[in-house]
């Protein structure tokens, strides 16, 4: 019964988040930043496809009803995207249909370096239909401040969650709905806006903890994550096998195998989907059903075949803090000094030896 309801919801809509109350709009990836707990997430769906060092991250933003100006979404990204464009019209729905139990959501990846204080740097601004998308670079405080100053409402866990991501990758995608443009473009309620983010990165990565943003610890976070990779990927944490129990919780690997020809052909035939390689790809379907209080990690993926997903990307460890510039300089001077001393010593001995020989 539950599966039928979920499937109906997934087919009827696209992904994302349902917002209750007078202002309604829905977001796929990322943490929802909206006022006063008036928002509830249903399942969300995301595709992270990885080929030739490029992650193609697809998600959908659903618009419905009157949008509150303070509603938006913040998505951590693994690196600086080269482009953010409209995604295929029905790629995510097709994936949902492929794996039967439909639902929604997933994410992007990692990077490093944490610009601490200061203002967030705007790397890119673009529009996809009724969405205003801004790619930001900055630490948690800088990005949080930018979001607040641009009318995003940040729930109380936002500072900690943003910091969790900024310590590993200082790149974020802030998305907001433009009600005016939605009306002008005739976007009707319930219509999803697919967004395709192209990110060069050494390995794909799916942020999961961001899904808990603004949620109570006991809230159930539900997401469907699809991965398309060149080979069977290794993941951290390791997903568990389905038990068959409808109330199973955790990160469940529902499907793992070569994508069918039919699926690949369908995906390639979608609008703006010529990026999908003309070769077999491995399809992994992960179902996330986890209490927000327990979902404190991301999904690290090693698609290279080496089988070593990065614990830092999974959020189980943090990158080592680089030595302060002063310390590095001092160390360099010390090494240089030692080098000069050795050269001088050697030269002196050589000179003495030559002098002795000439005598």
């Amino acid at each position, binding site marked *: 019964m539950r599966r039928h309801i979920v499937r109906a919801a997934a087919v009827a809509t696209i992904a994302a988040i349902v917002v209750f109350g007078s202002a309604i709009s829905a977001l796929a990836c990322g943490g929802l930043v909206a006022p006063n707990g008036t928002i509830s997430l249903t399942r969300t769906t995301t595709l992270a496809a990885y080929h030739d060092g490029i992650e193609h991250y697809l998600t959908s933003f659903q618009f419905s009803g009157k949008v509150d100006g303070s509603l938006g979404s913040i998505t951590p990204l693994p690196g600086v995207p080269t482009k953010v464009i409209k995604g295929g019209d029905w790629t995510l729905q097709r994936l949902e249909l492929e794996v039967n139990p439909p639902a929604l959501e997933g994410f992007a990846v990692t990077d490093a370096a944490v610009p601490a204080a200061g203002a967030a740097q705007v790397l890119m601004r673009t529009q996809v239909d009724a969405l205003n998308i801004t790619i930001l670079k900055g630490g948690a405080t800088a990005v949080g401040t930018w979001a607040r100053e641009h009318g995003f409402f*940040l729930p*109380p866990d936002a500072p900690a969650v943003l910091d969790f991501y900024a310590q590993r990758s200082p790149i974020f995608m802030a998305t907001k709905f433009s009600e005016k443009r939605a009306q002008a473009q005739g976007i009707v309620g319930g219509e999803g806006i697919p967004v395709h983010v192209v990110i060069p990165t050494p390995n794909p990565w799916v942020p999961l903890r961001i899904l808990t943003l603004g949620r109570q610890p006991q809230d159930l976070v539900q997401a469907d994550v699809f991965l398309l990779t060149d080979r069977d990927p290794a993941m951290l944490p390791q997903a568990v096998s389905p038990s068959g129990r409808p109330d199973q919780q955790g990160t469940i690997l529902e499907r793992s195998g070569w994508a069918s020809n039919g699926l690949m052909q369908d995906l390639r035939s979608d609008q703006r989907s010529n990026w999908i390689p003309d070769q077999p790809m491995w399809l992994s379907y992960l179902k996330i059903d986890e209490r927000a209080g327990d979902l404190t990690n991301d999904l690290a993926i090693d698609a290279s075949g080496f089988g070593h997903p990065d614990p830092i990307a999974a959020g189980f460890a943090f990158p080592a803090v680089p030595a302060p510039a002063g310390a590095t300089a001092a160390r360099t001077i010390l090494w240089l000094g030692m080098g000069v001393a050795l050269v001088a010593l050697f030269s002196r001995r050589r000179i003495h030896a030559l002098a002795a020989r000439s005598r």
Partner: protein
Amino acid sequence: MNVRRRGTAAAALLAVAAAVVVLAFTAAAAPPPERTVNVTIHFSHFDLASLQVSAGETVRFVVTNTDPIDHEFLVGDAEMQQIHEAGTEASHGARPGEISVPAGATVETTFTFPGRLASGWEFACHLPGHYAYGMHGPITMTT
């Protein structure tokens, strides 16, 4: 000679006793000296788990918000906290013990506690979801 000495000593003793009594009364009547309590907010948590005050104590709270989001610091009894949790006051600062602490700012307020505290006194932030997230702590009175 001895009588005079004894009289002088008794007078001195009386004076000292009187002074002690006066000092004791003065000490009892005067409020304790003002105390400064520094509070830091980080990741939507107060670094102060709880607070103990003495009867009638005046406390100067210096609250620093290191977060990129706004917070509040409101001192009061259970009823007052309830009102703020359900309330819609956008900002605070007019009443002692009630301040808004904008992102990255340091704000202070001075509050004099009553002679007795009923149970349920707290310091808290009542912006949407913040109390439930754990932004509150109990205030008790030393006996």
